[in-house]
């Protein structure tokens, strides 16, 4: 089988001018992850700078409320507030090893942009972040953070002015500047070897979680769960459990206003494969094969595609993919705030919301590990607007 593929998904659907760049990247990456010195450096920064390992927290009150034993993998406690930094540290160390002086990144909500700007500041690299004009408007705080960290935020005004277009623009810029510029992709998407690279640099989530749950429970969990936009926190959360057949893997996509309304971000729900951003995977598209806009209250899940390995895990039956609406996610977000004193990112709240449904089936002896991929500080305005509209607090 072609190593660039996960079943029929993945590949390298990019212009000819990027093919040699991808080959160089693959060679450098494969060499780096076999190099003890590189891995030691990566581990060093994860420990001393990011603050790993992150706790696997037994959420006692939530468990009582939902009806199964729920453990939260606290990626929200990482420096910069989400799992994104794990991958950024890995890719930037690789960029430095390859002699690149500049990094570029795409960002939607701004979390990956902030993480990349942070990594670039740490290693003294020039950083440009591509962000849709619409998202810049919606996520002013993160724009400011990136600028404070010394990054240049490039406003993208094409197509829908959101993440998908920012990604297009980052790819275009990369095609022009690959000689001295490294493209740091934040999700488990893009042309090979990006999906593999992001998985390896996020694998630490499940490596830690597996050891931690064995210590806490003396056995593997029944269910491992994470939210899925492009699929970076989920592929990291699944990685070390994929070869444990007793563990059910559940990915939670955003159903937005409901799958039936067409306003959602669930690439898997309709199961139509396509090519975008260098990969073949499931993709939201209209009747003419144009990419359809995704919708989710969570900017981080607002992506029309999904990582190719997830598409493969779905088709092979190894993982299940479900979806949660905006409303369900916001209810779960508030519930977690009040029961555990943890304000989760709206993205992560999708996984919490599905845990509520799954816990009842599992029963009180069931053990569930959920990736709490990020914290919700960035979302307070969205939450406030939402609560206003819904009158939740009244």
């Amino acid at each position: 089988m072609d190593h660039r593929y996960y079943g029929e998904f993945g590949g390298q659907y990019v212009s000819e001018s990027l093919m040699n760049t991808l080959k160089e990247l693959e060679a450098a990456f494969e060499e780096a992850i076999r190099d003890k010195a590189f891995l030691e450096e990566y581990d060093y920064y994860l420990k001393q700078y990011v603050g790993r390992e992150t706790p696997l927290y037994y959420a006692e009150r939530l468990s009582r409320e939902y009806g199964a034993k729920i453990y939260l993998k606290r990626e929200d406690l990482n420096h910069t507030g989400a799992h994104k930094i794990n991958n950024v540290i890995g890719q930037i160390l690789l960029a430095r090893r390859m002699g690149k002086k500049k990094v570029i990144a795409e960002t939607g909500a701004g979390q990956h942009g902030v993480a990349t700007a942070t990594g670039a500041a740490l290693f003294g690299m020039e950083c440009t972040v591509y962000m849709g004009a619409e998202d810049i408007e919606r996520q002013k705080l993160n724009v400011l953070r990136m600028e404070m960290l010394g990054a240049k935020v490039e406003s993208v005004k094409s197509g829908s002015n959101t993440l998908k277009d920012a990604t297009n623009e980052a790819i275009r810029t990369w095609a022009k500047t690959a000689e001295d510029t490294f493209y740091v992709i934040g999700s488990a998407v893009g042309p090979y070897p990006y999906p593999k690279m992001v998985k390896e640099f996020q694998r630490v989530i499940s490596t830690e979680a597996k050891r931690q749950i064995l210590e806490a429970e003396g056995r593997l969990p029944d269910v491992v769960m994470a939210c899925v936009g492009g699929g970076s926190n989920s592929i990291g959360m699944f990685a070390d459990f994929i070869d444990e057949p007793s563990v059910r893997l559940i990915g939670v996509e955003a159903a937005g206003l409901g799958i039936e309304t067409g306003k959602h971000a669930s690439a898997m729900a309709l199961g139509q494969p396509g090519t975008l951003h260098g990969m073949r995977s499931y993709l939201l598209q209209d009747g003419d094969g144009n990419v359809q806009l995704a919708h989710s209250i969570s900017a981080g899940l607002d992506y029309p595609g999904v990582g190719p390995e997830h598409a493969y895990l779905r088709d092979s039956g190894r993982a299940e993919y479900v979806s949660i609406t905006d409303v369900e996610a916001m209810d779960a977000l508030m519930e977690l705030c009040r029961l555990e004193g943890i304000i989760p990112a709206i993205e992560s709240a999708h996984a919490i919301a599905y845990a509520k449904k799954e816990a009842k089936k599992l029963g009180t002896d069931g053990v569930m590990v959920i990736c709490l991929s990020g914290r919700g500080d960035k979302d307070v305005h969205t939450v406030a607007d939402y609560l206003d509209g819904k009158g939740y607090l009244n």
Partner: protein
Amino acid sequence: MPNRIEARMQELAQKKEKAFITYMTAGLPDMEGCKALIRAQEEAGVDVLELGIPFSDPVADGPVIQAASYKSIQLGTNLRKVFALMRETRAEGVEIPIIFMMYYNTILHHGIGEFVRECAASGVDGLIVPDLPMEEQGSLRDALGKEEGAPLLIQLVSPVSADRVPAILNGARGFVYCVSGMGVTGQSGNFHREIMTYLSSVKAVSKIPVMMGFGIQTAADVAPMKDIIDGAIVGSHFIRLLEENGYSTEAAAEYCRTFKREMNAL
């Protein structure tokens, strides 16, 4: 029937002339206007015409073609309508070689087999798929190989293709499209710093004509490489010219005649 692109290339080789190739986005200013522009270019002596099938995420294109593509989608242009335009145009006796320049998702979504059949039936002579490097061409090539009168899959090379060039050219037909710089369409005056060496190296191993595209505006732009290349492709500049002149067929024809005359006088 021989492929129209190959027939035209042979004709030009005999006359010792260079090929002039244009690109325009299908469906602009509207379907009828688009047909009129195709006819006008045939009359003006354009050798091959690239028709861009608009796609929502044209990642190999710069701002000019992106905007044109977006506008055309808003007007309702889709592959089905462009096939209809092709059938009508051919039925009206237009014989200019036509290439579809499009992104792979549009083909996948239509279904590869059905797409190839419709291309053959409607008189499409070639395909340029910028997000389909040779490693990913298998399925499309298989389908093209099975269909009588199927279009040629035009191969692209870039200044950094280097050791990939022989493999890319293996079995390539029509012409080879040499991208003049790094990045996307429409960056004028920005040819790669090693453009001459690069073009010469492709020319040295290519059995088919070598065309240069990306960032070309006038025949003078290709004067330095006139002894290497067999023709030039103009896209973004041509689209801008069409827009500035309200899609006038006369302005389009005048530009094409001038470019072709000047290029062959170099």
